[in-house]
């Protein structure tokens, strides 16, 4: 493979707030190939959404500091001018948001909101753009699209609104699609339809997708690769198969452990991760996860977890001071049985 579609290298994002500097993303690196789907998992506040908004340049430069590289098709985005970013947004990179009700403007028709980026990026006439909007609505499975394009978002059902969002994201045929929890606000049947739709469309358009969620079930279904994030950094990455079958990081274990499964033993207990996510204002020293980690005493060398931040390599990797053997044994002997 030549250059990846998206390549993030050692990204640091911090905000200035009244209380101090918040390090929302702290040394994150990952790659995304064309036509593949990367699932990003993590608790709230782990920096997944921030990362993706930073990719689009939708941060406020007055309060935000961005360091590191974001390369789209080999092109540096962190230093790009606003006008260049504008040309990329909605065109090369598109985004689908979590709540389609609030993410669509109540004041304009669905058709207009879909047509807008097409007019802007393709220089299309109003009429052509409208036709394209109708076409896209048809593609995402809205019945009677010509008529419904004239409707306002509040006249759509929740699932239809998310379809409209997707139509809006795909109207310019983007290379990269960032879906930020696109199904969280929907009920389960609609959720499945939307996921299928996304998969179909990926087939058709061949875009790379970053899929953000905290739902491991959804990610198992959608993603080719998985990156687990905690407190602004990646703690584990690998293919979906690898991460779900043989997870290496205590945090990932915790995530798996706290997730109900249909196929699990009814007697098995769900055990949430103890403690609360750390303050990014004043993050814990060493491994960010150590205050909540029950395995730190097994790490060789006293207090290593509290002083030294574990690094994460490329490819299949995890950021933990436990040795590869320990990781494997602990998972097989202590975690797996509990998962059933």
């Amino acid at each position, binding site marked *: 493979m030549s250059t990846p579609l998206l390549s993030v290298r050692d990204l640091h994002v911090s*905000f*200035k*707030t*009244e*209380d101090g500097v*918040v390090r*929302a993303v702290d040394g994150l690196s990952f790659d995304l190939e064309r036509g593949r789907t990367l699932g990003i998992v993590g608790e*709230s*506040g782990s920096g997944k*959404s*921030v990362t993706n*908004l*930073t990719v689009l*340049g*939708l*941060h*406020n*430069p*007055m*309060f*935000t500091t961005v360091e590191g590289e974001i390369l789209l098709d080999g092109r540096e985005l962190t230093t790009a001018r*606003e006008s260049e970013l504008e040309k990329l947004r909605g065109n090369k990179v598109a985004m689908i948001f*979590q*709540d389609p009700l609030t993410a669509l403007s109540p004041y304009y028709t669905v058709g207009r909101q879909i047509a807008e980026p097409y007019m802007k990026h393709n220089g299309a006439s109003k009429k052509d753009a409208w036709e394209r909007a109708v076409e896209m609505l048809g593609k995402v499975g809205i019945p009677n699209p010509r008529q419904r394009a004239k409707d306002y978002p509040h006249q759509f059902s929740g699932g239809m609104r998310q379809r409209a969002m997707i139509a809006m994201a795909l109207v310019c045929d983007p290379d990269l699609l960032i879906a*930020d*929890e696109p199904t969280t606000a929907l009920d389960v049947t609609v959720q499945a339809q939307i996921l299928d739709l996304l998969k179909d469309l990926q087939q058709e358009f061949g875009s790379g997708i970053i899929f953000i969620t905290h739902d491991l079930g959804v990610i198992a279904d959608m993603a080719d690769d998985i990156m687990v994030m905690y407190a602004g950094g990646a703690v584990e990455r690998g293919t979906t198969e690898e991460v779900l079958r043989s997870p290496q990081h205590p945090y990932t274990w915790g995530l798996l452990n706290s997730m109900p499964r249909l196929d699990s033993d009814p007697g098995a207990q769900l055990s949430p991760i103890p403690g*609360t*996510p*750390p*303050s*990014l*204002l*004043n993050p814990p020293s060493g491994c960010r996860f150590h205050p909540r980690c029950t395995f730190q005493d097994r790490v060789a060398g006293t207090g290593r977890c509290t002083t030294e931040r574990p690094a994460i390599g490329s490819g299949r990797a995890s950021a933990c001071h436990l040795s590869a053997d320990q990781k494997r044994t602990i998972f097989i002997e202590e975690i797996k049985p509990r998962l059933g």
Partner: protein
Amino acid sequence: MTSPIDIGDGGTSVVVSGEPGPKTKGEAVELAGRSPGRLMWMRFKRDRTGVISAYVVGFFFLIGLLAPLISKLYGKNPYTVYADERPDLFDSAGVPVHPNGGISGQFWFGLEPGNGYDVFTKLIYGIRTSLTISVVVTLAVVVTGILLGVAAGYLGGKTDYFIGRVIDFLLAFPAQLFFIASMPVVVSLFVSPRDETPTYVRVLALIIVQWFLGWMGLGRILRGTALALREREFIEAAKVSGASPWRIIRKEILPNIVTPLLVQSTYLLPNFVTAEAGLSYLGVGIVEPTPDWGQMFSKASTELVMQNDITYMFFPGISMIIFVVAFNLLGDSVRDAFDPKTAR
């Protein structure tokens, strides 16, 4: 997560997701186990504008409180007619002959054109009068707002409908016109037209008319809060466990409306101060010789002052601006301390 990610340069911060943000979370750890009141207090203390404003506001209240003491130390009172006591300082129309309204080491803020009262003592006593009235109106409005607003929101149904219509009706009143028209009526309720109108009756009348048309906004807000609270789980739980409505209101609802109440009250009070001054300015509130902020404005708008002694206007004018600005800033800080998510 609450993060000031923004739409481009100089734009505005965006709530990236509905989940609680790192900042709040961080504090939750840091301040775990502290009551919301403590939390608010900690946030407030960090807000330098808010703290300074609070000191300024406190200063005004202190002046009002200590006016008699201050004037005693200063050795004058706001009732002495210096135009007759010290005719050398005035012309025949009562304008101070010395420049800048007769400001001197003896009369720090000068002398009032007309009867030649001492401006300094008049101002501090005026602040005392105005603040007394406004504080009482605010208290009355708060009590009424709680009673009617919470009743409407919590009881719902017919009570809500009825109180809602009353609020609609009162909001359609041309307020200022109503104040002017009703002041004499209210005064006449307390004194027969033959008798002297003691100052306290005027004060009382001002309180009553302002209270009558002052509570609706707060009432509506509290109704909304109570309505929302009614649907919340802990209220449901209390209901199921058989608590009486009165107990629920007292134990569960009232503690939860403290936030909007405190925020609204800090906005209401300066409004009552300016409204009271407006009535006295129009001549239907406090009248000479009782010192009052609004009455000083009324004096300041006479030709005598506008023509001859512009200095005089600035004492009530500037002091009121400082007071209102400080109070509004304080209101913003209180609001932010309670509800840090609000954008500024």
